[in-house]
């Protein structure tokens, strides 16, 4: 039984006008959200924009709405995993065929959305395309601070080893999924720091993902979700989740599958 379906059994989703959705998680990003939404409208006019306001205490929601986005306001901060999954549940219920995650802080350049879409649709077997900062050796983009790059490299090695595919940027939140990926993430998405685990989930469910090179920008406002005290927790939590994920059974996901809750999985 799907939690959202259980809440509203007579729920009749509006038919999606566009088949594509841009999911923009935003927590106190009033300074950057207007330009992010405007850029998505400019560079990817086929995409509906859904801003998931993750319990912001500033004007993020009203500015997003004024910029022409659909806005879902979470009553309190769920963290990036919960916010992004809200977007996937929305995409699943409204019948979107493709969903792309774009951070609300302006680090992700919406110019790459058409490239991601082109790559996703170029091969039928592909279920997810991630924008990687490290795939090409251009050095002018923003590639995170040195200590973070060490962590990213460790995760990249680990994920590449497990999936037996070259993964250069497993922590990138700029990624696009097709309908199968939407169904999977609407059903199950990692809680804290979800990006690395999400790639491994795709792999474990026998879904294909790949990367294309992108350049990212330094954030224009707000603060990172990963503060200075948390990198240790980040590393340990993700390593534990990756390790335990190896021992989970993962059925293949098909569109229209009945979602499984934690109780049913036992």
């Amino acid at each position, binding site marked *: 039984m799907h939690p959202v379906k259980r809440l509203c059994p007579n729920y009749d989703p509006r038919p999606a006008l566009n088949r594509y959705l841009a999911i923009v998680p935003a927590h106190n990003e009033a300074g950057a959200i207007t330009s992010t939404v405007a850029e998505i409208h400019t560079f990817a006019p086929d995409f509906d924009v859904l801003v998931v306001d993750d319990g912001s205490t500033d004007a993020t929601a009203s500015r997003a709405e004024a910029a022409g986005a659909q806005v879902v306001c979470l009553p*309190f901060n769920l963290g990036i995993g919960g916010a992004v999954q809200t977007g996937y549940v929305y995409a699943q219920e409204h019948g979107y065929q493709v969903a792309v995650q774009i951070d609300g802080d302006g680090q992700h350049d919406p110019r790459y959305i058409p490239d991601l879409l082109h790559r996703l649709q170029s091969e039928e077997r592909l279920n997810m395309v991630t924008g990687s900062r490290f795939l090409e050796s251009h050095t002018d983009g923003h590639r995170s601070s040195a200590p973070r790059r060490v962590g990213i490299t460790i995760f990249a090695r680990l994920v590449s080893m497990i999936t037996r595919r070259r993964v250069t940027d497993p922590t990138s939140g700029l990624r696009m999924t097709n309908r199968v990926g939407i169904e999977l993430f609407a059903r199950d998405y990692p*809680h804290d720091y979800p990006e690395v685990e999400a790639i491994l989930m795709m792999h474990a469910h026998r879904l294909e993902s790949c990367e294309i090179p992108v350049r990212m920008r330094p954030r224009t406002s707000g603060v990172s979700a990963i503060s200075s005290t948390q990198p240790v*927790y980040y590393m340990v939590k993700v390593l534990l989740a990756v390790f335990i994920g190896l*021992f989970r059974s993962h059925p293949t996901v098909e569109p229209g599958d009945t979602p499984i809750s934690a109780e049913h999985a036992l």
Partner: protein
Amino acid sequence: MAHQRIIAIAISAGLLLLILELVRRKRLMERYALLWLVSTLVLLVLSVWSGLLSSLASALGISYPPSALFAVAFGVVLILLVHFSLAVSRLSDQNKVLAQRLGILQRRVHEQNEHLERLSKRVGIGPGLESDEPAPYTERLTRTS
């Protein structure tokens, strides 16, 4: 002595495996598993390396090593309890916010339904009152509450 040590190792290892299995089944979130994993690992190390407890006790000035174990265990349990109190406080606060939001939303839906009914009565079309269709879910929710 060797016999007791094997039992101690088996219990600590079993506890460690239990925590890992609960995380695997998604019954326990990683966030809450980490503290348990650290404590069971400490237990495991203490039971494997039995000399450690004695040296730890003498370093702390405790003549009876099991007392040192109790002191450490008490400290760990205290930290776990504070951790859970924090988690419960956060959950009750979030629960309160959810209940408030739901109540306000119910009220808003109720108002909009009444508004719709008035409008359709005035115009004589739209979702008629004699309709065989069941009332929308949100309306039933408001009526039963």
